[in-house]
């Protein structure tokens, strides 16, 4: 019997888990995938929005504003990469300028510290912005975060403080008997007094297990291009276009590792498994991106990907408790990431309405920092290697990752179990060769550390094997 069961370990579920880990309650997180944060929370623009653009009065506006303010502390405590680079929303004609003025008014109402800047000032700040730009909104409090690290760090810290995580546990039903919920999964059943639905695009389905009022969450796909990091200077802010008759606009933004994202598109899809990309959509993304920049170095494209927004017809976040003890996090689409710390805080308030939350004395908000060997000055690096030569052994050429870091990310709480899990935690495979060189080395380390055979190592979920069979000897 648990006090609280959280369904789904995306950024929302992980934030709530970590927030609950401060209190003296027994918390279980159920996640259908083989790793945390493998759905929408790892396939988005990674922007910590300033909060200026949601419609005033919406939950999105409130929680984005609050979340943005909480982000720096959270990332500092958890050793998660966050860069406060600011965003620029760029107008290129009269229609867009009018739209920009409206956005500015909304932003002021929301209380975001934003500024309208001239074309001249814009070009000074961002030389790579299109020459067509006439005016922009500068939002200095916007930032970029490493979303892979964020979800892992939240869950790791939650587990350091006693939260239990069960992976590969797909929830298939919920029943309530008196005050107790019975949460069924493909593997078994778990009981708790409070259930929090953080199932992203599946949150409608989860709601419908227990709530008479059915909810529909529609997956709305966004496709992107990723550019490799390259030495020449390029865009240094997040650039947004203004929605106009020319299209809803896309963004061009650096990532915390100096790569660049271009996207996303936006179209409804049938299935929450539809995470493909397609040429026509991406051609369109590029066309839209040319409203922001005049040059896109397409020779540096290393990947395409897509993520699914959990769209609710209200257009807003829907956070409610339709059944006592059952809490819904529905429609957490953008700016869900930016709002996540505030959503987490709101959830605590809602749980408190149901059960008593007593603070633990020994709660530790900090996670043990990562090694980040390639950022260390030479002497520190040498000193670290002296303590453990695995930090001298390189395994990833593109992102310069050491064997010591890979081993470390396997042996932490919420440690890596898959090739993608290692990639999300310490980056081998994110670079130009996309794992072509390092994958066999990562496989070997996973096998050595977890006592597995290479044929049993998956790329991500069950079924995503990399090697089919051994050629010689026993099969």
């Amino acid at each position: 019997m648990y006090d609280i069961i959280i369904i789904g370990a995306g950024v929302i579920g992980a934030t709530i888990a970590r927030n609950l880990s401060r209190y003296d309650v027994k918390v279980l997180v159920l996640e259908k995938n083989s790793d945390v944060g493998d759905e929408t929370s790892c396939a988005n623009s990674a922007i910590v929005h300033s909060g200026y653009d949601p419609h005033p009065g919406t939950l999105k506006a409130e929680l984005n504003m609050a979340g943005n303010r909480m982000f720096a502390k959270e990332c500092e405590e958890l050793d998660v990469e966050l860069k406060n680079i600011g965003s620029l929303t760029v107008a290129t004609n009269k229609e867009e300028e009018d739209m920009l003025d409206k956005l500015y008014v909304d932003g002021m109402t929301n209380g975001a510290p934003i500024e309208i800047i001239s074309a001249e000032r814009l070009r000074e700040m961002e030389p790579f912005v299109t020459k067509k730009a006439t005016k922009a909104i500068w939002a200095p409090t916007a930032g970029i975060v490493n979303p892979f690290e964020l979800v892992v760090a939240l869950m790791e810290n939650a587990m350091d403080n006693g939260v239990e995580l069960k992976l590969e546990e797909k929830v298939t039903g919920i029943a309530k008997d008196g005050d107790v919920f019975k949460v069924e999964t493909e593997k078994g059943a778990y009981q708790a007094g409070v259930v929090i639905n953080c199932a992203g695009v599946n949150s409608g389905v989860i709601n419908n297990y227990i709530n008479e009022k059915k909810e529909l969450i529609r997956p709305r796909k966004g496709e992107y291009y990723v550019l490799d990091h390259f030495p020449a200077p390029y865009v240094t802010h997040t650039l947004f276009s203004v929605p106009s008759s020319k299209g809803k606009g896309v963004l061009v933004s650096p990532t915390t590792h100096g790569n660049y994202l271009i996207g996303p598109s936006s179209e409804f899809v049938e299935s929450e498994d539809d995470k493909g990309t397609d040429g026509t959509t991406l051609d369109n993304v590029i066309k839209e991106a040319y409203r922001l920049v005049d040059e896109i170095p397409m020779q540096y494209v290393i990947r395409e990907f897509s993520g699914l927004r959990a769209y609710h017809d209200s257009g807003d976040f829907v956070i409610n408790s339709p059944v006592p003890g059952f809490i819904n996090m529905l429609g957490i689409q953008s700016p869900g990431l930016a709002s996540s710390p505030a959503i987490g805080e709101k959830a605590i308030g809602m749980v408190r309405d149901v059960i008593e939350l007593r603070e633990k004395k020994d709660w530790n908000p900090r996670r043990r920092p990562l090694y980040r060997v390639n950022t260390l000055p030479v002497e520190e690096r040498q000193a670290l290697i002296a303590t453990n030569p695995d930090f001298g052994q390189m395994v990833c050429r593109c992102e310069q990752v050491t064997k010591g870091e890979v081993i470390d990310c396997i042996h932490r709480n919420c440690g890596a179990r898959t090739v993608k899990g290692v990639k999300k935690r310490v980056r081998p495979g994110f670079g130009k060769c996309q794992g072509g060189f390092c994958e066999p080395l990562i496989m070997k380390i996973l096998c050595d550390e977890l006592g597995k055979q290479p044929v049993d190592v998956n790329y991500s979920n069950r079924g995503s094997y990399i090697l089919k069979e051994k050629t010689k000897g026993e099969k």
Partner: protein
Amino acid sequence: MNGTVKYDLVIVGGGSAGLAAAVAAYDSGIRSILVLEKDKYLGGILLQCIHNGFGLHEFKEEMAGPEYAQRFIDQVKERGIECKTNAMVLDITPDRKVHYSSLEDGYVVVEAGAVICSTGCSERTRGAINIPGTRPSGILTAGLAQRYLNIEGYMVGKRVFILGSGDIGLIMARRMTLEGAKVLGVAELMPYSNGLNRNIVQCLHDYNIPLYLHHTVKEIIGKDHIEKVVICPVDDNLKFIEGQDMTFEVDTLLLSVGLLPNNPLLEKIGVRMHPKTKGPVVNEDLETSIPGIFACGNSLHVHDLVDFVSAEGRLAGKNAARFLNGGLGDDTAVIDIAPLNGIGYVLPSLTHLDSIDDTVLKFRVKQPYNNVYINIKVNGQSVKRLKKPYLLPAEMENIPLKGLELQAFAGDKMEMTVEVEES
């Protein structure tokens, strides 16, 4: 060994190019040489090329990749040249400090008199060519599958489709067939193959593996692991021709869609890069735009035959030795070299008047040709014209300029061009 050490010559990458360079530098009198190799063994990509076809030019015999590599490893060992494996170079500075990290030595900074960069190439991936569809496992580059099979002893799958007719893909079609897989076909976007003719015959025809020219992947299907691949013909604008989809049930899609020189270390310090080869710009001495830093092998431009890589490595080694022994002395008139009609790229990008005898032009054509001439001109005037029965993009051409008399042009600004002349 943490700290700073000094060598006359540091060679980054111990593949065919780097090993040949080390031997040549030694034989030119350099004794303080360090070869740094990131992998566990010397030899580079050849170690996974267990098929034969190597060495016909170099040793006048046909051997397997590892055998060929061993000859050079032996030459390096005989000379007592110092080599470190498991040692990855992380930085080369413009003043030739080479930073490397290794299990044995930790993080070391080497002060080098000269540096040769021979870091090989990497394979283009799915992301680089934007293959539509989902992202399951089971889609990988042919070279990675080759490594899993030939080095680690694992098959990546049993029902295989191959995209791209590059040589590695062709070799893997045969290799996986021999290992019991069913290779359902090879699709190539262009109307001609990008692999060597002998590989089309020996790896596809001999095993009845169909080659679909002017076709590409339209869709990938599969959630966790690839289940199906949809292939479709394309028109002359490389757009899909509707209604002609072919669906194959597969557990593997191998990509053999091109190789790219691997030079992050040089790019990082602003070495001038060649827009076509994607390697550095070099002169006839294989020196890059930063003095004392040389490049050779697949990191300079992608080669079809390892024998030419070895020869290029030797040239780099010899010239690095000249540089160390008091300079290259390239102070005679500069001749810029550029590709024209029908030529994809030509190396070197420049030479000097008194080095003409040692200059070998290396180039690739953009498309296949039959019965044409290669015309080499200086300032628009033909200086060499060669008949070619056929030219293929898959094959690198070598034309030595030995004996070319260019004194008449001295004093003018000289530009040499290479072009295909159709009769």
